[in-house]
């Protein structure tokens, strides 16, 4: 364990290395590039490979290939690059490839404001690609949590054989805070299952264990892996039938949902006596927490719910987190997106959107101004 002073981007790179990152492919894009640059310095010293590809499409396809060759693999980007990666996210889903994709949000639409912060891509992180699937999405609110949730993202990816999105933003990316970096052994690091031995007879490589996750027959070990982007049965054979379609898509979703208690994380404060609940996540939650403390000084019984996992949501935990709250106010730096989830989940309370559209971290007065009409 060592203490240092770092930005969110360095923390992500350090977290990935603690989790056992062996391969990074990327394409430069603000505000994520320091992750790439730092790893380009550090990862080769630890036996890993860092490569700059010709675009984000190549980057994500390269990490999927690297993961199949047995390496823990990651890429990092921002909105425009993440849009280019969209197609391959569902390739990683259907081929059950553990990879971590870091999306450091900046303001859009389109090229937008590359150096400025935003939370506008929270839905894109969930649903960028085509087809039915669930990918876990984590959103850190501090430099330390950027480190911790990067490790969690790798663990989730390896445990469930799924792509995982780490959704940072320009504020967290360039924020300097103290950071505790752990050594191997001081923090839980999960490794994927691989088949115990090479089978002499042909076997169905996509047949899951009880946890709905099949062991991963990585390349180069004699498993004769059959990685298939088409709809496939347990043998990996293309099979466009309803029975195969149902069982594959259901399993890919259920394996994540079944482990919701592992995947989903939240933090609550002041909820015991709260009558009004403020919900937030990522960098904006930092300001919201300050505002809540200010409101409580003024006698407003405000509670705080911070989502660390933005997808999938544990609706039961969210609904039960603040039993006496009559109002729920969702504060986010976008046009009001997670608000849509909260208005569905808190169906017995009044739910309001306190949307702050700001290119900087929302200030306490901006948040207060957005919240006050609903108090």
């Amino acid at each position, binding site marked *: 364990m060592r203490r240092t002073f770092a930005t969110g981007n360095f923390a992500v790179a350090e977290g990935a290395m603690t989790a056992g990152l062996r391969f990074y492919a990327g394409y430069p894009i603000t505000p994520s590039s320091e992750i790439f640059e730092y790893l380009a310095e550090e990862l080769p010293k630890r036996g890993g490979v860092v490569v700059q590809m*010709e675009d984000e499409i190549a980057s994500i396809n390269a990490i999927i290939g690297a993961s199949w*060759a047995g390496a823990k693999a990651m890429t990092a980007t921002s909105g425009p690059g993440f849009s280019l990666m969209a*197609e391959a996210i569902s390739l990683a889903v259907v081929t059950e490839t553990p990879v971590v994709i870091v999306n450091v949000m900046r303001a859009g639409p389109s090229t937008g404001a590359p150096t400025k912060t935003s939370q506008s891509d929270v839905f894109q992180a969930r649903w960028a690609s085509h087809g039915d699937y669930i990918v876990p999405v984590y959103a850190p609110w501090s430099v330390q949590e950027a480190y911790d949730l990067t490790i969690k993202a790798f663990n989730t990816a390896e445990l469930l054989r799924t792509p995982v999105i780490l959704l940072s933003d320009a504020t967290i990316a360039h924020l300097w805070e103290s950071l505790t970096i752990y050594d191997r052994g001081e923090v839980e690091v999960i490794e994927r299952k691989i088949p115990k031995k090479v089978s002499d007879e042909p076997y169905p490589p996509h047949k899951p264990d009880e946890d709905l996750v099949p062991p991963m027959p990585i390349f*180069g070990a004699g498993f004769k*892996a*059959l*990685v*298939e982007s088409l709809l496939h049965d347990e043998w990996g054979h293309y099979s466009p039938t309803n029975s195969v379609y149902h069982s594959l898509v259901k399993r890919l979703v259920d394996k994540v949902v079944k482990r919701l208690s592992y995947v989903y994380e939240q933090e609550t404060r002041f909820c015991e006596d709260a009558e009004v609940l403020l919900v937030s996540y990522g960098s904006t939650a930092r300001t919201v927490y300050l505002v809540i403390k200010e409101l409580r000084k003024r006698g407003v019984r405000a509670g705080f719910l911070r989502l660390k996992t933005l997808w999938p949501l544990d609706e039961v935990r969210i609904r039960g987190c603040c039993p006496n709250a009559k109002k729920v106010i969702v504060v986010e730096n976008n046009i009001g997106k997670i608000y849509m989830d909260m208005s569905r989940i808190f169906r017995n309370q009044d739910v309001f959107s306190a949307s702050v559209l700001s290119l900087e971290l929302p200030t306490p007065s901006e948040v207060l101004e957005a919240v006050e009409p609903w108090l």
Partner: protein
Amino acid sequence: MALAMHVHPLDKHLRVKRLPTIFCSGCGIGVALSAMLRALDKRISEGSVNPNKVLWVSGIGCSGRAVLYLNYDVAHVLHGRAIPFAIGAVLANPELKAIVIGGDGDIAAIGGNHLIHAAKRNFDMVVVMITNFIYAMTGGQVAPTTPYGVYTTTTPAGNPEYPLNVIKLVGALNANYVARASVTTPHLIEQYFYKALAMRGFRFIEVVATCPEMFGRHIGLRDSVEMFGELKKRVVYRHRPSLEEAMMDWEKGIVIGEFVERNNPSFIELLRGVKK
């Protein structure tokens, strides 16, 4: 017992349960694939290739389906993205011998940028591009190699573009090996692939193929034998031709041969040798 014995010398390279292939009668992909397997078989029996380290990667299209029948580590990935997938796999495990198969649409159109950069890096892989002059799996649309003026379903007034000569493109970059063969010369496919397997760096082989079902239909050569005969007439072998000679013209002729042969350090060798 007798029923379980292999009936074809290449069966050990195949997932025989999956046969027959989806390829149409008269399709050239099977000819190309069996020539490649004969070459690989030789390399394996010589001991110069470990079959457990062979990785076949393909994208989308008729040619992309070829790898699914192979009894190796195989990956059938996104349209155009076989090359970056293979790059990631080889960088993560440099013992892997990556072979990418794709059609001209997959490799040179949607995947064209990856092709250029893989060749520029002299990346450690063999790419076999099977050129059938058409998007066949999707029903006969124009391809980067479709000759000028040819009717396709998306160029009903005739193709307004001149075709891309991929050999000239790749030859202009840092590839160690650039060759073109034809399904009418399967012995050359075998010979070139056999050579490529033992080389380092980026190795590119274009295989000109017959597609009577789609391309043939458009140009009035719907009959498999007739199409094969017409392609055979157009193919001209040259010994070590220059890139300037790499003509690819359905009217004037298609030059096959080994255009580029170098022994430059590969990407991984360069990566390992980068000066601090």
